């Protein structure tokens, strides 16, 4: 690139979906930009690019963040989980499976972000209530209006996670 006025690219190492990777990034780049443009992980969406729609939600060291409001460099040495990394060994996460069964989507553009927040909720609080679900996605926007099914799906997934925890690991 002959972008001579651009700042010098710097090296960034981080773990994405369990895989260590190193990319050269513009210091001003956001996490969502490097996920999508450099790593090709386009499942994470940009809806507003100012932290208002939560379409870009990922996990950073296990906590939900808006990746459009996170500098890529701030993810250095840390672990990022994106929607592409949620399913394990070809098995959908219980929230993903419940979203499919309850049709918790229409156009699907907000879905990856919704799934990341709802999956975080059921993992951290399998006893979550409807109010907890409303709160967990309070910063997400779904313009198609899939909320009623997102509520049902997340509560159903929480039940699955609870049962798994009671039964212990398979």
């Amino acid at each position, binding site marked *: *690139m*002959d*972008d001579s*006025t*651009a700042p010098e690219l710097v090296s960034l190492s981080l773990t994405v979906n369990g895989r260590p990777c190193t990319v050269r990034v*513009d210091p*001003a780049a956001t996490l969502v*930009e490097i996920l999508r*443009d450099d790593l*090709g*992980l*386009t*499942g*994470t*969406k*940009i*809806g*507003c*690019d*100012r932290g*208002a*729609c939560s*379409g870009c939600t990922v996990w950073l060291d296990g906590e939900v963040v808006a990746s459009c409001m996170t500098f890529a460099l701030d993810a250095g040495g840390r672990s990022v989980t*994106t*929607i*592409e990394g*949620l*399913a394990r060994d070809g098995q*959908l996460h219980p929230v*993903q499976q419940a*979203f*499919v*069964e309850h*049709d918790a*989507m*229409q*156009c*699907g*553009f*907000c*879905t*990856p972000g919704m*799934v990341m927040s709802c999956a975080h909720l059921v993992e951290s609080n399998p006893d979550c209530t409807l109010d907890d*679900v*409303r*709160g967990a*996605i*309070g*910063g*997400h*926007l*779904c*313009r*198609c*209006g*899939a*909320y*009623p*099914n997102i*509520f049902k799906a997340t509560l159903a997934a929480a039940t699955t996670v609870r049962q798994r925890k009671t039964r212990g690991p398979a």
Partner: protein
Amino acid sequence: MSASDPREERTILAGIVGDSLRSVTRPIPAGEPPELPPNAELRVIGKRVNRVDAVPKVTGEARYTYDVQLPGMLYGRIVSSTVPHARIKSIDTTAAEAYPGVRAVHVLDRILSIAQLRDPSVEADERYPLVRYHGQPIAAVAAVSMRAAKAAAKLVRIEYERLPHVTSLEAAMQEDAPVVFPGPTEQAATAGGGGAAPNLPQEGNLRGPARGGLGGGPRGDVQQGFAQAEHILTREYSTQVQTHTPMETHGLVADWRDEELTLYASTQFVLSVRDEAADVFGLPKEKIRVFSEFTGGGFGAKFGIGNYGALAIHLSRKARAPVRLMLDRREEHVSVGNRPSTIQRLKLGAKRDGTLTALQVESFGTGGVALGAGVGFCHSTMYPIPNVLTEHYDVFTDAGPSAAFRAPGQVQGIFALEQALDELAHTLGMDPLALRDKVDTNDADDARARKVERRIGAEHAGWAQRRPPAADPGPIKRGLGMAQSQWAYIVHGTTSCEVRIRGDGSVAVMTGAQDIGTGTRTIMAQTVAEELGLRTEDVDARIGDSRYPAGPAAGGSRVTSSITPAARNASYAAARDLAARIAPHLGTKPEEIVFQDGRVFARGEPDRGLSFADAVRKANFDEIVHRADRREDYEGYRAKLGDLHISKQALGGVQFAQIAVDTETGVVKVERVVAVHDCGRPINPKLIESQIYGGVIQGVSYALYEERHLDPETGVQLNANIDQYKIVGSRETPDIEVHVIEQLGRQSSTDARGVAEPANVATAAAIANAFYNATGKRIRTLPMTPANVLAALRADDRNDDEEPA
């Protein structure tokens, strides 16, 4: 199909399943498959099947236009006007072109998707298109990175000669208001609607009156009708500008090659993208290919290439590289569509027993620099009122263009009409439902559906326990209200489906449609699976390629009504073809072959049959291909506007809203909505419920929160983002109960109709009527913000109703 095709009279059971099935006779074209029984007797259609593309959506694999990455792809960035009304004196792109990483800069020489001067010579000496709103696209830059494109776009120097501007509907109607267009204008409708009747008078910013429209012209004599009335109610209503705000912004990826132009579009109609690109760039349609795998919402605004798309194509042609140009959130709010605001004056005349004698409507709406700000067709089509006169004026303002938005016009019109009906009922001492029973009597499917829907809705909403207005003594007042819905039953004329049974037993169905989130692939696959005795997931449903057989526009609730009959007829032909080939192997006649539960067998002998795949292998062919067009409805249409075919039947729907009004703060909360709808034969209740949830939620959002705010001084939209343009989120979502009836209209081989628009039409009116029940006061201004609510609560309720008799 034409009227001259041979037909046979068939007598079929039609009507509402579980309520009123009766025998009807239909002139059915030769070769049409046998009519389907009610859903209870089917195996795939009518079942709660999972969306076939749900897994790619929950795993992030679904590829939207925003996600398209091509080798050597550049990033496009638009340069927009920073003033609301101006002549452009000069544009200097030198610095932008010299910026490192920039590969092309293009300046627009015409503006699409807005009204056009009837006589362009009025402005012919202008070098650049006039600026008529803040945020109008002027130019664009393509660069190797988004960062470089953004930096270079800032370097484009534009010199303006400012002109006076006007941004509000009321101000633009003043006699001395600045004029947005210097002469009369025209704007044709897109496939999604919008546009306006041609050749209407235009004075200043007012264009009209338009009388009639989709509902037909004036009817009877309103003066006579009012003379017969025993009660006349005259009211004014106003509604705000709402923006579409799809989660994926508008955008296009353009890849210009000498041999072919390839476009990846976030669109509601791939063929409109191809056709507008062909028109603007003078290309044969065959040299353009459009892909649209997934579209992140549209709601009416995503048709054609738009200015952003034209810019992307120009940039790709200049740079000789693919260009992705996606709007940012501000550009999305400002420049690619909105639902126009309105002022509506309704005069409704009735007898004391509720009989409606006359309805007169004068309406004004502004779609900014676009036409099509009408208030729908409900006034003429919903109730059999003998005397109707509607006069609508489009009012130009220096604001971004409107576009069709989920039930364009009808949402605004019904907000007023259904409140007027409710008010009339109270004035006459009638139950609002009893008034509807009395007046909702058209001989049409929508009226028949609403009759049943009122009963179901009343039962589930607890209508019998409804209290008198303002029954709560405290500051929080609860109420229950209802309103009725209506939308046209639309078929997209040019629709084809192709079904392929391959030699390995796999089955595919394809059409050049797209999916904005309704489940297009799923309903296609279900229809084919039903016919071939397979499961939905056994059918590979393909859409999103302009090279497939022509598919319908996803606008106006017409995808399911258009695609499923074509898909069924194509799969029926494929099934009969396969039956003829396999019958000898099963020792029977082709007409005795049954496809069921993944098996192929002679009628009555399921045990002797074969699996579908084995039957295909035994028949030993490479591929069976059958294609069918969407035939015209058996009884024809009321009107055909190009490919938009409008039935004499319509879609109904009734909604009940329970709300709480905090009379101290003016905050309204919608607690519960019962939505009862019809969509012909429901193909997939799970997906239908999703759409109805969405329609209700958008209706609540429109009623309570959404409003575009333009600064009158600068023309800048002050809330062109997602945090300040408030939309219903998880915390405001009410408890929604959906009921769907099964209505067999017997006009096509599937009886399927749409539901997206009717689900959105009645909500705001139902909430407004609940507001009256809660508070004893009317709210005739949207949105129901605390300021508007407190004003309504304080308003003097005296009216000038007339009681002439």
